[in-house]
């Protein structure tokens, strides 16, 4: 436990030593910010039109739903941006240790591969949560100026964090297989994208395969969270997925087997 924390702490801090992390943070914030602004302005415009219309025709205003029109598509948007961003976080998680030779320190220290992998996974997840903070700030503005429902926002973030864990465990696995960060990033992205689009393929295959592809698809399970529904089967999917990623990571670094 102490050792896992040591790995976590070093890894998490090391994000902030490297300029890459700040670039990622800036880009992620800029992209999610721009999209938030676009969604917000179109929502404001629609509400404004609605108000004018209601005055013209002397009807009660429709009261457009901010959760439906803004928050829900915005979560989808963040999920998509995460798909592109997370491989750049996971690429260095393990490849870097291999490249600079610090694996030699890790493997010869009294620490198990489990502890290494879990520490690194949690560090990646923690950094992802840091990335999400600005978007939380944006959404908080809605609560200041409006009156959205809170639960869908909460469930949306739970969904994002679960989705993020799945991506991070997949990326971490790719990162354990190579000492080249570029390959780790491309591989991590390819794997994540594949798991994302596999659901589209479901429409083109026979009825036997369709439910399987639908189930595997990483984004299908996100839908409910974005709508404010927390379904344990989706939680189970993401947790299972993350464990699988961690398991494969463990197997690659354990290719040398030591009996404890």
């Amino acid at each position, binding site marked *: 436990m102490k050792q896992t924390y040591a790995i976590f702490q070093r890894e998490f801090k090391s994000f902030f030593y490297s300029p890459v992390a700040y670039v990622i943070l800036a880009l992620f914030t800029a992209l999610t910010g721009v999209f938030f602004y676009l969604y917000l302005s179109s929502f404001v415009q629609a509400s404004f039109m609605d108000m004018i219309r209601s005055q013209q025709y002397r009807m009660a205003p429709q009261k457009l739903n901010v959760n439906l029109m803004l928050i829900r598509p915005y979560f989808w948007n963040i999920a998509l941006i995460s798909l592109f961003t997370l491989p750049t976080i996971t690429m260095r998680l393990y490849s870097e240790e291999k490249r600079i030779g610090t694996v030699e320190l890790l493997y010869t220290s009294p620490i198990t591969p489990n502890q290494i992998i879990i520490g690194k996974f949690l560090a990646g997840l923690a950094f992802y949560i840091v990335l999400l903070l600005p978007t939380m700030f944006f959404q908080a503005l809605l609560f200041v100026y409006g009156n959205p429902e809170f639960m869908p926002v909460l469930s949306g973030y739970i969904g994002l964090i679960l989705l993020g864990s799945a991506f991070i465990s997949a990326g971490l696995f790719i990162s354990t297989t190579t000492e080249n960060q570029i390959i780790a990033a491309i591989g991590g992205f390819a794997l994540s994208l594949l798991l994302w689009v596999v659901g589209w393929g479901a429409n083109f295959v026979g009825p036997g395969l369709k439910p399987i592809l639908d189930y595997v698809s990483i984004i299908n399970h996100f839908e409910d969270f974005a709508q404010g529904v927390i379904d344990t089967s989706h939680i189970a999917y993401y947790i299972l997925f993350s464990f699988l990623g961690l398991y494969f990571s463990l197997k690659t670094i354990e290719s*040398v087997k030591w009996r404890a």
Partner: protein
Amino acid sequence: MIDVKGLTRYYGEKRAISDVTFHVNKGEILGLLGPNAAGKTTTMRILTCYMPPTSGSATIGGFDIFESSMDVRRITGYLPENPPLYTDMRVDDYLDFVAKLKGVEKDKQASEIDRVIEKTSLGEVRKRIIGKLSKGYKQRVGLAQSLLNDPDIIILDEPTVGLDPKQIIEIRDLIKNLRGEHTVILSSHILPEIEQTCERVVIINEGKVVAEDTVDNLTSRLKGGQRMTLLVEGNEERVRKSLQPITDIKTLNFESQKDGIWQISVESEKDVRKEVARQIVSANLGLLELSPDRFTLEDIFLQLTTKEEVA
């Protein structure tokens, strides 16, 4: 303290070491001597549980590398060939991290870090970023790391490589001070280094142990003959004539330097330094230099690998 039995390791088809067997006593410093690609690093990586051997076994401080690898790791400090440094960390943060990895208790952490910083004279740079240190200082940080948690066993893979002469001496002294309290294995391909720091040496060549003995025994075993180099001013004929009476000389080899100075290599049955000096001086030749040649690693290998089984 360390018992190595029949270690063999293949990398794919290639055999890196075969049937490596040796023993290290408690509190001694053992030198692992061998040329490039001999298998020193491979052997050390197996002993530190970085990777398993293809076959063979070893016990470190009573713990088997297969059965209780975690215990082996707990009592062993290791400086790999390339120091395993996170170059973007500060020296003290790095040592703090390693101390945690090695399970140093929280209340002892600070004093333990101070101790190794003191030992490796890193005080001045403890707040600096590792990546910005000179090669020698990086090597010291690597060494400091291996001393954390006061391990019984310390394994150092070419610890003085890339250091300047002053630093080499400092590091050697540091290693010598480990004697007694720690059991040390040290690899090198430089014979004098091993001679100065180790009491016993294992020589390894092309993956095989070719000798295991004390340094003194090894060098005396090689002293079937003596060699020295002279620098003499004068002409070749006169030098040859003056040395003729010394019957113990086997071969003389003249090499012309500038300004009528000759560099002469002398090989002899026994120590003839006094006779040679006397003869040359009495022949009125200018004796500029006389230095006994040490046997180099190459000589030892030639002897050990071309002659039939010395070991």
